[in-house]
C-alpha cells in the first residue's frame, strides 16, 4: 500500500427502532447515490415487519415521553441541538452529496429550527389552551395533549431541514414517531438518528425506517395503532389511497404548509397542535 | 416476659374496637394527598446520614432485619444456611449483631427453630394462605395456630384485599381479629400489600383497620408481586401509626419488605421512621425490615465506613 493512501472505514446505514440500530429483518437493502451518481452507501430496505416493530416501539415509549414535564422535554430537545451542532461537518458533507445548493445554510437552519421547537414545549398550552368562561358555576379549562403515535412521511427533498421540520414539532408535545425517510436521500436522516441515539431522547420516541416510499406508506397509513399521519412526503398520486386507508381508525391526516422551508412561515406552533387533541374539563365551583 | 413489655403489648383477645366499628373507622380516616406525601418522603429520603450516625443506623438495620426466604425451593439445607447467617452475619467480625428474626414458610419452622436455638434470633412464619390470603378461613386460622404451636415467635399474615377493596370492612376486621386470637402469644404482623391497594388513602385505611383489630405490626408487602415497599407508602403507614398511638396509647410496629436491597434504602426508611414516629420506634420491637440480599450490602457499607474503601461482594459469604 502506498504511503498516505488511508482506506476509509465505510458507513453502514441501519434502521433506528427502540433506541437501537437493527438491520431490516428482511435482510434487504438498497443503494443510495449522490446527486452526481456516486454510490454513497447501502441503506436498509425496511419491511412491513420492521414497520410493525417501529410502531410497537413508539407506542411503548409514548406514555413515558408524554408523562415527562414539558420543561424536561424542552431541555432534552435543546440537547439534541447541541449534539447536532457538534456534527455540523458530517451533516454538511451529506447535504453536499445530495446536491444542496448551500449545505452550511441548510444545516444551520435545521439546528435553529430544532431549537425553535424545543422552546415551544413548555409554552404551547399557554398559547393554545386556556380557561373557558362557561355560563354557570363551573371551572372549565381546555388542555392540549399529544395525540399519541404519529407516522411521518418525510419530504423527499430538504433531507435535513425538511425532516427536522416534521419531527421536532411532533415530539415536542409528547408524541412518539415512526418516520419514513426520504427514499432518495436517507443519509442525513440516518445521521440524525445517530444523534438521537446518543442524546437523552428516550428509546422509541423517534423511530426511523429507510426504504421504498411506495412500499412503506400504505403499511403506515393502514396501521391501526397509529394515531396520526403526516403526509408531507407522500407522492401526490398516493394521497387518495393514504386518506382512505387512514379512515379505518380515523387517523388524523396532516400536511405541512407548502412554503419555502427556510422561511419563518415554515415553522409554527400550529404544526405542533395539528398533532394534538384538546381535552376540556368541567368542575363545579361551590363552597 | 417483663412487666413493661406486657403493658406495651396488646393482650390478645382484648381488641380496642369491634367489627361494627370497622366501617366508621375506615370512613373517618384522614385523606392523604399523594403529591404532598411523596414530596415529604422524598425530602426525608435526601437526608445525608454519614459516619457515626450511618454506622448507628446500619447496626440498627441489621438488628431489625427479618432475614427472609420464601421460595418454593427452600430445602432444609437452604434454611440451615440462612439461620447460620442470621445468627452470625459476618463470621470474621464479632461486633456485627444477629438479625431480629428469620422468616420462612410453615414447613420450615421446626428446622429454623432448631438452628436459632440459644441465640436471640426469633422465628417468624408466614401463614394464612400467604401470599394471596384467599384460602378457606378455617384453614387459614388453623395454619396460624399450627405454626404458633410448633413454636414460631411471630406470624406474618396478609390483609384480605378481596374483602377490603370490596368494601366489606366488618368481615375484613373480623378475620383479622380472629387471626389475632389464633396467634395467641406470638407477634402478629399484618401485610397490607400496598402495591395492590391503589391509593395512599386506601393504605391509610388498611393500616387503621389492621391496627384496630389488634395487629402488633403492619407490614408493607409480601415481596411476591411487582410493586413492593416504597418510601411514600411506608410514610403513609407511619403517619397512621402515629395517629393511632395518640388516640389509643398503643404502639404498633412498622415492617417494610420487598425490594429493599441497598443499605441506602434501609437508612432512608430509618430516617422516615425517626422523624415521623420518634426514638421510641427505633428498636426491633417496633421496626423490621424484611430482606435477604440487603444484609450483605450492609456489611459492605459498614466495612467501607470503617476502612474507607468500597467493598466487593467476594468478601462476604452468600449464606
Amino acid at each position, binding site marked *: 500500500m502506498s504511503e498516505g493512501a488511508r482506506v476509509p472505514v465505510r458507513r453502514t446505514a441501519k434502521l433506528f427502532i427502540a433506541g437501537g440500530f437493527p438491520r431490516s429483518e428482511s435482510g434487504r437493502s438498497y443503494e443510495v447515490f449522490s446527486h452526481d451518481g456516486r454510490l454513497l452507501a447501502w441503506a436498509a430496505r425496511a419491511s412491513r415487519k420492521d414497520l410493525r416493530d417501529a410502531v410497537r416501539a413508539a407506542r411503548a415509549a409514548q406514555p413515558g415521553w408524554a408523562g415527562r414535564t*414539558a*420543561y424536561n422535554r*424542552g431541555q432534552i430537545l*435543546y440537547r439534541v441541538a447541541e449534539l447536532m451542532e457538534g456534527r455540523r461537518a458530517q451533516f454538511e458533507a451529506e447535504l453536499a452529496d445530495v446536491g444542496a445548493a448551500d449545505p452550511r445554510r441548510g444545516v444551520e437552519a435545521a439546528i*435553529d429550527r430544532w*431549537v*425553535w421547537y*424545543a*422552546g*415551544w414545549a*413548555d*409554552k404551547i398550552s*399557554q*398559547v393554545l389552551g386556556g380557561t373557558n368562561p362557561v355560563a354557570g358555576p363551573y*371551572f372549565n379549562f381546555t388542555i392540549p395533549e399529544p395525540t399519541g403515535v404519529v407516522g411521518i412521511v418525510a419530504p423527499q427533498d430538504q433531507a435535513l431541514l425538511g425532516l427536522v421540520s416534521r419531527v421536532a414539532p411532533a415530539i415536542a408535545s409528547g408524541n412518539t414517531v415512526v418516520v419514513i425517510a426520504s427514499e432518495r436521500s436517507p443519509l442525513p436522516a440516518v445521521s440524525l438518528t445517530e444523534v438521537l441515539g446518543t442524546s437523552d431522547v428516550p428509546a422509541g420516541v423517534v423511530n426511523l425506517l429507510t426504504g421504498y416510499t411506495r412500499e412503506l406508506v400504505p403499511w403506515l397509513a393502514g396501521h391501526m395503532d397509529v394515531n396520526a399521519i403526516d403526509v408531507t412526503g407522500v407522492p401526490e398520486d398516493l394521497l387518495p389511497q393514504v386518506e382512505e386507508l387512514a379512515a379505518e381508525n380515523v387517523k388524523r391526516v396532516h400536511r405541512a404548509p407548502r412554503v419555502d422551508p427556510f422561511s419563518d412561515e415554515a415553522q409554527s*406552533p400550529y404544526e405542533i397542535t395539528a398533532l394534538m387533541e384538546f381535552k376540556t374539563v368541567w*368542575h*363545579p*365551583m*361551590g*363552597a | *416476659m*417483663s412487666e*413493661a*413489655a406486657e403493658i*406495651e403489648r396488646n393482650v390478645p383477645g382484648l381488641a380496642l374496637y369491634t367489627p361494627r366499628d370497622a366501617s366508621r373507622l375506615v370512613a373517618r380516616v*384522614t*385523606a*392523604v*394527598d399523594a*403529591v*404532598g*406525601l411523596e*414530596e*415529604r418522603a422524598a425530602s426525608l429520603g*435526601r*437526608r*445525608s*446520614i*454519614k459516619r*457515626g*450516625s*450511618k454506622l448507628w*443506623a446500619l447496626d440498627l438495620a441489621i438488628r431489625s432485619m427479618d432475614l427472609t426466604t420464601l421460595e418454593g425451593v427452600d430445602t432444609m439445607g437452604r434454611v440451615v444456611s440462612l439461620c447460620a447467617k442470621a445468627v452470625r452475619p459476618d463470621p470474621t467480625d464479632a461486633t456485627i449483631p444477629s438479625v431480629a428474626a428469620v422468616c420462612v414458610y410453615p414447613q420450615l419452622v421446626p428446622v429454623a427453630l432448631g438452628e*436459632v*436455638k*440459644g*441465640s*436471640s434470633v426469633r422465628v417468624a412464619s408466614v401463614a394464612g394462605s400467604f401470599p394471596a390470603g384467599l384460602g378457606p378461613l378455617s384453614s387459614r386460622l388453623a395454619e396460624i395456630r399450627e405454626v404458633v404451636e410448633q413454636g414460631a*415467635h411471630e406470624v406474618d399474615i396478609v390483609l384480605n384485599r378481596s374483602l377490603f377493596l370490596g368494601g366489606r370492612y366488618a368481615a375484613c376486621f373480623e378475620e383479622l381479629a380472629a387471626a389475632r386470637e389464633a396467634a395467641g402469644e406470638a407477634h402478629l404482623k399484618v401485610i397490607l400489600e400496598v402495591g395492590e391497594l391503589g391509593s395512599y388513602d386506601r393504605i391509610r385505611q388498611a393500616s387503621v383497620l389492621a391496627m384496630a383489630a389488634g395487629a402488633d405490626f403492619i407490614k408493607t408487602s409480601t415481596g411476591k408481586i411487582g410493586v413492593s415497599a416504597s418510601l411514600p407508602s411506608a410514610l403513609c403507614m407511619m*403517619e397512621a401509626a402515629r395517629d393511632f398511638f*395518640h388516640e389509643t396509647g398503643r404502639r404498633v410496629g412498622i415492617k417494610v419488605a420487598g425490594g429493599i436491597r441497598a443499605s441506602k434504602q434501609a437508612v432512608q426508611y430509618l430516617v422516615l421512621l*425517626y*422523624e415521623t414516629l420518634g*426514638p*421510641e*420506634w*427505633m*428498636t426491633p*420491637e417496633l421496626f423490621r425490615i424484611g430482606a435477604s440480599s440487603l444484609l450483605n450490602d450492609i456489611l459492605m457499607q459498614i466495612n467501607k465506613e470503617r476502612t474507607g474503601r468500597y467493598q466487593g461482594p467476594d468478601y462476604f459469604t452468600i449464606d
Partner: protein
Amino acid sequence: MGEIERTATSALEQQQRVWEYATAPEARDIVRLEDRYDLFVGGRFVEPRSGRYFETINPATEEPLAEVAEANEEDVDLAARTAREAWEERWRDLPGKERAKYLYRIARALQERSREFAVLETMNNGKPIKESRDVDVPLAAAHFFYYAGWADKLDYAFPGRAPRPLGVAAQITPWNFPLLMCAWKLAPALATGNTAILKPASTTPLTALLLAEVIEQAELPPGVVNVIPGPGGKTGGWLAAHPAIAKIAFTGSTDIGKVLRRNVAGTGKRLTLELGGKAANIVFEDAALDQAVEGIINGIFFNQGEVCCAGSRLFVQESVFEPLLDKLKARLDTLRVGDPLDKNTDVGAINSRDQLRKIEELVQSGLEEGAEMYQPDCDLPERGFWFRPTLFTNVSQSHRIAREEIFGPVLSILTFRTPQEAVEKANNTEYGLSAGIWTEKGSRILWMAERMKAGVVWANTFNRFDPTSPFGGYKESGFGREGGRHGLEPYLDLDGASAEGGDGA
C-alpha cells in the same frame, strides 16, 4: 426453644434510641471567593468611580466574605449610558433566535455550575444548602431556559400586536432569593430585547456577581447586562431616576415600593412592583391533615419565612384546631435549625442583624398583645443571626403579628368556622400576594380561589414556583406579573406608544 428477652424500655434504652445525625457539611471549596469584587459594566469588571467598597458577610457566622464595589451616581450614570448604547447598537436589532441562544447559554452555565452557585448563595444569604441546591439554583436555570424560548416567538404571545422592547430596564432585587430574583428579572428582560442593569441587594451581592461572570463567559454583547451593587436608598434611587431608564422592576418591601412609585410618577417610565405579603393559609377540617401540616411548615419556615408570599397567617377550621395544633407543635420539634451549609439543616440563619431585630420586635409585640407563643427547644449557634421557628396561638386579627409582615419564621394562628368567614378574614388585609387552601373538596377549592384577592392561590400545596406560572400581587403586594406569558408584557411596548423607548440620554 430459646427464651426471648423482652427488655423493658429503661431510661438507658430510651437514650440509645436517640439518633444524632452526624454533621454533613457541603464543601465550601467549590467557591473561589475573591477578596474584592468590582462592578460589571460594559461586559467587564471595572473599578467603581466611587472608589468605595463595602463588606458582605455570612449571616450564619458573621464572617466577612468579600468586599464589593459600591456604585455612586457617576457609576450609575455610566452603567445607564452603557446599557442604552448596547441596546441601540448590539441588542435591539439582534434577531430573536440569536438572543435566545445567548439565554440558553446562561441557563446551561447555571446548570453546570449549580453546586458553586448553591454554596455561594447559602454562604451569603444564610439559607439552607438543600434549598439553594434543590430550589433556588434549578429554578433560576429554568427561568432562563423558559424565557430563552420566548425570544423568537413574541408574535405568538400577543396576537394582533407587534411587540417591541422598551430599552434599558433597571432591576432592583431583594436579599431573600438573590440569584433567583436576578433570573426572574433578567430572563424576560433580555428575551424581549431589552438591556438590563441589575442592582442586587446590599447584603447579598455575591451570586449576582458570579452570574455576571457567567454572562461574561457566555459572551453576551458588552453592556447588555450590567451589575452595580450599592445601598438601595442611594444606588437604587439614582438608578430609578436616571433618564436613560425605560422600565423599572422592583422586588422588595412595600414601603420602598411606594417610594419608587412616587419618584417615578410623571416620568413615563414603566414600573412593576413585587412587594410584601401576609398570606392566609386556610385549613379545612376535611384536609389531608398530615400533608397540610407539611404545607403549613413549608409555608412559613421555608427560607426562614423570609418570603414575600409566606403563609404567615394560618386559619384553621375550629373543628380541627386541636389535632392540627398538636401535629404542628410536634413537627416544629423535628425542624433542624443550624449551619446552613449542613445538608440536613431545615432552617438557616436570618439574613441580617437588622432583619433579626425587626422579627424580635414584632414577636415581642405579639407577647405584649396577649398571644401565646410556642417555640421548640433547639440550640442556636453562638455567632450569626438566628431565630427559632415560632407559633403564636390566641391571636386576634387586630394584633400586629396578624397584620404586619414579619418576614421571619413566625406563624400566627387563628380560627374560622365557615368558608365565607375564611374568605373575608383572608382578604381583610392591604396585602394580596398569595393564599393557601387545604381541603379535599374540589368545588370548594375553586369557589375559594375565585374569591381570594391574591395573585397566587395554592390549593393543597404551598410555595410552588415555576417559570411558566405567573407570580405577582393584588393591592399593596404590588402589580405586574413575573413568569409565564404574562411575564413578558411588562418588558414590551404593545401599543407602539414609545417608539424609541425611554429617552436617549
